[in-house]
């Protein structure tokens, strides 16, 4: 499942805290706590959306800065800097939006393929079902295991 996204969930919870729960509470402290909770969730949503790219850019900025000055620093500091600059991490994952667009295209292709092979016992259909099991396992942490509490 791509949609609703994690950002959709955060947007919905923030609006519920501010527009539904806070106005219905009579205790001022509880109302205030709702507003604080919404505030923190707004930050969490923004952080989820931008932290990875910001940290990547920030690290690159730091590498450029340190790289410029390594040879001009006292030797003990220079050694620490040289060590930190060694073996920069290689970015391995595309951005979430890129992955989601890729998923939509791939899944649409799979739907067309499934519909073109009506024989359930065809080897392709067996492989599809095995893939679907793996797909569920990948999402299990947030789609199944996280639902531990009463839901209403």
């Amino acid at each position, binding site marked *: *499942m791509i949609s609703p996204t994690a950002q959709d969930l955060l947007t919905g919870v923030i609006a519920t805290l501010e527009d539904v729960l806070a106005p219905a509470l009579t205790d001022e402290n509880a109302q205030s706590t709702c507003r604080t909770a919404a505030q923190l969730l707004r930050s969490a949503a923004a952080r989820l959306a931008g932290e990875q790219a910001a940290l990547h850019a920030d690290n690159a900025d730091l590498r450029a800065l340190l790289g410029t000055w390594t040879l001009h620093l006292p030797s003990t500091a220079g050694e620490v800097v040289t060590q930190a600059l060694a073996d920069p991490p290689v970015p391995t994952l595309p951005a979430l939006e890129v992955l989601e667009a890729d998923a*939509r295209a791939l*899944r649409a292709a*799979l*739907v067309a393929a499934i519909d073109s092979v009506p024989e*359930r016992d065809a080897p392709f259909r067996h492989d*599809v079902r095995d893939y679907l099991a793996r797909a569920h396992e990948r999402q299990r942490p947030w789609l199944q295991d996280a639902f531990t509490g009463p839901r209403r």
Partner: protein
Amino acid sequence: MPFALGDAAAVSRWLTHRAAHLGSGIDEVRVTDVAQLSRGVSRETWAVDGIAVTVNGERPLALAVRRDHPAGSVIPTALETEYDVYRLLRDTAVPVAAALLYETDPAWQPDGRSAYLRERVEGTWYLPFLAGDDPEHDALRIAASKEHLDKLATVHAVDWRACGLGDVLDVPPSAADAAAHLVRSTRALIDELLDEPSPLLAEAAGALLERAPRDAPDLVLCKGTNGHGEEVWRDGHIVALSDWELARIGDPAYDLAQVQEMVPEIVRDGRRLWGWPEALAYYRERSGYEVSLERLEWYRSAYGLLQLAYSVHSGAAVRRLGSRAPLRFLWTAYEITHHAERKLAAAAGVPA
């Protein structure tokens, strides 16, 4: 001018204006209490209590107002279709609350939204003896099970063509096609509502079609959601069948597969006193319709499609409304979609 459904004085004016729909001889309606009920999430249900003033005196009024949430409905069935089912069943043997009015005049729609009015039938949805395994309750539980099956048989006996239900509900091409039609039509609806491709839906729909039974005995009116928590009971009998949101014309097995808690498995001293084989035999005796355990199991395995239809319908509302979407719609689109997908995975034979 729009009025709030919670405003008793305004609701009094509305119901007085529509008094002819509430019964003969009513000159005025005085509403004493209006309150939204908390049971059910797909639509809003409000209880309206009041007094009908007639030339012969006063009598109490107990009414219910049904309408969509401001965001719409969780389920894809139109509000007017739900009203039409109640309206068309009124002159049949099926016990239902009488549908009185579907308000389409913007000047009289509470909060500017379509709503319908029906009688509120006195009784309870709760049967405390169903839970647990106390042998003292065995007879009660079996009696309640038979009563429920009797009422399903009554629903399935309705001449849906004659009373016009074929004009408001989708009709499969034939009884033999009922199961396959359920899969195709529900998949088509889901595909319209989804904003992403679903290989799981394609695989499950294919698996269900391959196994779709073709031995439905007849096309009957089906209630859909039924059982404990959905019907109104009084003195050991169902006095009103409620919740017709998933009603359709189809195989009676569709209803039996959705029975909630009303067929308990009762085994005493190694002997089964009641369970599904006994219930199906009893149902056959009362209705004349044979429902095999195999056909029942197929409809149970297809339930994930129905659940996915309303969960992605909620998802469509969430996309449309963004941050204004009620949290309950967002939750339905999220957690309930997951539960529906688990059922579809089982129907498709996806390894667990």
